[in-house]
């Protein structure tokens, strides 16, 4: 499997293959086609960063542009899912959740339980997240922790092109509502991706670097920094397990606990705001279920509790990096009771 494509292409390919396979898969979002009602080119955009480009040519009206009415069209995707379709709706930036969250967390997430197990709502909500684009406080957030908080949702955060494709295919085939987080900085990342369709099961973390000294649990863009840190640390004789969660709901507790039981040390790396986030979630899990193995404090590497700043100078300080991760690992290695 030598073919390399980008994270963005991997998502596009997953969508295309699933749409080809199953006519109930449809897609919708602002400018997912682009050019609706205008005089120029159709498929002018394919989404604001081009992820759905080309699907219109192949699938026509199965991919639809929408007004800037996130509640209406995301809710429509939810409703259509409850009526037998498999819609993939795009919430352009997850920062816009505030105008449509009800349809996700009170409707999609709760139908099955409220209706006594009779509803099936296979909707996928694709959304961009994360800092790095100098897009400031309202276009750079990393809000997956809030979705993970909600019972009934599944939350997927791929870090590589390979995972993006396999997890998107699983998301579409999955029968529960799935929120699929795409890191805008990763779109141009290249990686090996098989041409055929394949699904990566939810709830299976990926160990992307192995070592017995410290466990690093992370996700999304941070996986790459964590691996960089692990490689640097390996040269200094500190061997890290780096666990890429891939999905945070469901969570692969087993892989995390197995690793910490072996290493006795945990660093959690999370790009989201530090309060009540995935980092605290994993730390709390381990402090409860692998306490006996712990040899050192659990370090959390996250941004500070501030909005994402605009200036590149500040944004670069805001986002965790390999150096901060390495420092956290070093500190847990050096810990003495």
């Amino acid at each position, binding site marked *: 499997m030598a073919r390399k494509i980008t994270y963005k292409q991997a998502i596009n390919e997953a969508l295309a293959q699933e749409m080809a396979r199953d006519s109930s898969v*449809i897609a919708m979002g602002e400018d997912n086609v682009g050019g609706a009602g205008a005089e120029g080119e159709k498929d002018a955009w394919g989404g604001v960063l081009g992820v759905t480009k080309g699907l219109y040519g192949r699938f026509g009206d*199965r991919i*639809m542009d*929408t*007004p800037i*009415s996130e*509640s*209406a*069209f*995301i*809710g*429509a*995707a*939810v*409703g*259509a*899912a*409850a*009526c*037998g*379709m498999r*819609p993939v709706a795009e919430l352009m930036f997850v920062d816009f959740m505030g*105008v449509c969250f*009800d*349809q996700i967390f*009170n*409707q999609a997430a709760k*139908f*099955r*339980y*409220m*209706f*006594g*197990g*009779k*509803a*099936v709502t296979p909707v996928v909500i694709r959304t961009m997240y994360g800092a790095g684009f100098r897009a400031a406080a309202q276009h750079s957030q990393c809000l997956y922790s809030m979705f993970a908080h909600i*019972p*009934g949702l*599944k939350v997927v955060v791929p870090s590589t092109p390979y995972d993006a494709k396999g997890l998107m295919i699983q998301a579409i085939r*999955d*029968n*529960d509502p799935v929120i699929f987080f795409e890191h805008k900085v990763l779109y141009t990342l290249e990686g090996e991706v098989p041409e055929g369709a394949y699904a990566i*099961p*939810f*709830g*299976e973390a990926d160990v992307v670097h192995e070592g017995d000294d410290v466990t690093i649990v992370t996700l999304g863009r941070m996986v790459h920094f964590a691996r960089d840190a692990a490689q640097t640390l390996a040269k200094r004789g500190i061997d890290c397990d780096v666990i890429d969660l891939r*999905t945070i709901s*469901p969570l*692969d507790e087993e892989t995390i606990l197995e690793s910490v039981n072996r290493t006795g040390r945990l660093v959690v790396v999370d790009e989201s705001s530090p309060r009540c986030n995935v980092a605290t979630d994993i730390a709390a899990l381990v402090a409860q279920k692998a306490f006996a193995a712990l040899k050192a404090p659990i370090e959390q590497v996250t941004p500070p509790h501030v909005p994402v700043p605009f200036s590149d100078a500040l944004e670069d300080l805001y986002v965790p990096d390999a150096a901060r991760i390495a420092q956290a690992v070093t500190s847990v290695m050096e810990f003495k009771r």
Partner: protein
Amino acid sequence: MSATLTRDDLLRAYRTMRTIREFEERLHVEFATGEIPGFVHLYAGEEASATGVCLHLRPDDRIASTHRGHGHCIAKGMEVAPMMAEIYGKKTGICGGKGGSMHVADLDVGMMGANGIVGGGGPLICGAALAAKMKGTDGVGVCFFGDGASNQGMILEAMNLATVWRLPALFVAENNGYAEATSSKYSVACDNIADRAGGFGMPGVIVDGHDFFAVHEAAGEAIARARAGGGPTLLEVKLNRYYGHFEGDQQTYRATDEVKRIRETRDCLMLFTRRVSSAGLLDLAELEAIDRDVAAQIDAAVVAAKAAPKPTAADLLTDVYVEYA
């Protein structure tokens, strides 16, 4: 009187309205005993709306409802016994006791749920209509919502989207004059909710919601247009609720004789009965037989609901996901 109504239709309409009335009035009594948990919003007085609209619908058509949803459920064909059990929080309830009054739903009959969120049904019904359109059936989606909900962004966005996508949808604004204790004269900035239709590119129609025949006719036109690909309609149904916003509401915000006056002069069951009997279409004995039958049915539902078992610990953790990892 709409030419399309057969004798059977009339009997069905009457039975539906009477079932709703009986269901709600019985709940009003039972709620006072303290045995029914949670918030209960009664639809009594508004029966002609749900009934007039839903008589046009097939099981594969979908409706989205509101917190005041019992009437829509019954009109769309839900069984009263499992509904009643649900409202009592019993294992035998249509949702296994997990949903309650604000979340009764039965997807099998195209009833997508009462909704605890005002306006929540607008987007959902766009989805139902979209599904019908994509599948190439001539199915429709009907969203019931209140005057209060007509100020909710979700409803307003949904109307625009329905026109943009030319969806087979019907938006039924049940204007009963109040959102909780707030008059629609205060909260709705225009004279009629139907005045909003033009701004969303669809016809807006106003009907008297006490008059089953008027509702039935207007809804029929709109639904036929939707089935034929002519896009959505906003139908404003002006009507009244007989009880408080929810059970327990003292209704001091209403004029003292408001409900009494309406009950005496504009009651939908009374108007229906008068009309069909004066036109010689049904006779009173038939209707009274239905009344007795319905009363027995509701009574049986209450008795069964009270006797039914509650869900147990084993039920707490199930039904969150279809597929657990």
